[in-house]
């Protein structure tokens, strides 16, 4: 079964066609990277997949369900989890609180007014497990404000995992990270590989080529090539449009 299918997706801002008849298929279980030069329309594409931006035309389907008209929360409840490029977490909450919010979201509605949530094992135990999975258990009780940049990226992933998603959308997870932190994150993502399909949008080509099963190249709002790392690297159109000197010589 396919995880995500985009068909004829189009979005214009004024005269600018940011997404221009885009087709993309993400298979279940694969890590599918989307790369492209700045201004290719990656952010707008992510926005349309998550529901923050409404496309002008086209269809989006998630595991066979047409989610084109669905809101952001509806898509999240259908199993779409997203790691934001710039961390979007709740200030004033600890690392564990942030993950517990994600666990709670998966346990039905939250119109429960009396029982204390901060001592609820049904929330805290899965939250702690997700923190352990990303290597952040020691920082569970640390307020968000006191976490380092790299730790916030790890926390973003813990939050996404705690949602028990069916598809994980990673928007430049390596952004702003040092080489060591990047390597640790690549190892973490590699450990998740196979357990669920991932869409990876990333500028770090080392990370892309080491993680991705398939790569799609986005140029001017269209996918110009989809294939394995080898295929994409060898495609002259891709080289011309984007990669240039950035291609790591394997």
């Amino acid at each position: 079964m396919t995880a995500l299918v985009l068909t004829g997706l189009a979005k214009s801002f004024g005269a600018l066609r940011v997404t221009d008849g885009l087709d993309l298929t993400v298979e279940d279980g694969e890590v599918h990277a989307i790369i492209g030069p700045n201004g290719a329309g990656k952010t707008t594409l992510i926005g349309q997949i998550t529901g923050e931006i409404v496309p002008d035309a086209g269809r989006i389907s998630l595991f066979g369900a047409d989610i084109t008209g669905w809101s952001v929360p509806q898509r999240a409840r259908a199993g779409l989890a997203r790691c934001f490029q710039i961390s979007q977490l709740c200030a004033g909450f600890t690392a564990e609180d942030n993950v517990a919010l994600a666990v709670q979201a998966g346990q039905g509605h939250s119109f429960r007014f009396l029982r204390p949530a901060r001592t609820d094992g049904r929330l805290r135990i899965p939250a702690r497990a997700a923190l352990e999975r990303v290597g952040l258990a020691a920082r569970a009780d640390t307020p968000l404000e006191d976490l380092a940049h790299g730790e916030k990226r790890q926390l973003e992933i813990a939050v996404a995992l705690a949602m028990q998603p069916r598809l994980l959308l990673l928007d430049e997870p390596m952004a702003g990270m040092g080489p060591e932190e990047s390597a640790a994150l690549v190892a973490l993502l590699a450990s998740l590989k196979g357990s669920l399909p991932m869409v990876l949008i990333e500028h770090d080509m080392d990370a892309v080529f080491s993680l991705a099963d398939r790569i799609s190249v986005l140029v001017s709002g269209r996918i110009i090539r989809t294939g394995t790392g080898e295929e994409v690297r060898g495609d002259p159109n891709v080289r011309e449009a984007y990669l240039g000197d950035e291609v790591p010589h394997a």
Partner: protein
Amino acid sequence: MSGALKTRGGVLVLLLGLVLVALPFVAQAYGSTYAITLATRVVIYAMVAVSLDLILGYGGMVSFGHAAYFGLGGYVVAILSFHLAEDVPIFGFAGTNEALVSLPLAMLVSGLAALVFGALSLRTSGIYFIMITLAFAQMLFYIFVALKYYGGDDGLSMPRRNLLAGTRLTDPASFYFLCLGLLGAVLGLMRAIVGSRFGMVLTGAKANERRMAALGYPVTRYRLVAFVIAGMIAGLAGGLWANLGRFVSPDMMAWMKSGEFMLMVILGGVSSLAGPVVGAAAFLLIESTISGLTQHWQAIFGPIVILIALYAPRGLWGAATGGRGS
């Protein structure tokens, strides 16, 4: 929050509670019912301020129309009493003087108004939300000014206070303890709500709405429920207020009153349970002290508020506890 700070806040809460409980006994010993009346006003305003803090402090919804629900609750109680006294049925209902009927009805009507106004207001955010909540409150204000049958501009008097399960609420100390007990219940409820799953979603949405949507929470629905709860509690307080002075008027829902409630919350400290109570007490004590000195008491009150805002940005309660409140 460290244990020591929690203890400090706990000690202060205990002291505050003791003062509130002992007050009528001391006042009666000195034969002063004025002090009891003032304390009752503090307790009722505190109830409104606590309810406003649920949406303003914890929920991040700056409602500039909270007096609407306070005034509406007051009018429900006064109108029911009016119809009974005039022997004119309302919607086939003879009216009532029984608090066990009229106070829940006050909460119901205020809650319904909050549901409608909130559902419409929550489609906006930021300055637009402030303006639209203000606009709805002013709309209600002018409706009641125009309702000549219920006194219009001059307000509506109640011949007598309500009965509670058949007992007249005339005794100042007993009425005070009723209000204090209800404030205690409201504070207990707030404490539970803030720490519950619902409270997590409400405060999480204030911290990062985008994240909460991405987690799958339909944020507006949670905000609306908080808005309705706050409206219902304000309605209850309004019903008590109507009993206290045996009088309601459109001024109860005027924008000035909404501003006063916001001031109480900010003065005492937002996002805390004790803060709004302290804020309401400080507001009324300062007001009653300096309004005896000069007619232009607001000229003195304004600078006091500015000084508190400058030197205690987390409010009086925040300054007193040194922590994040309790």
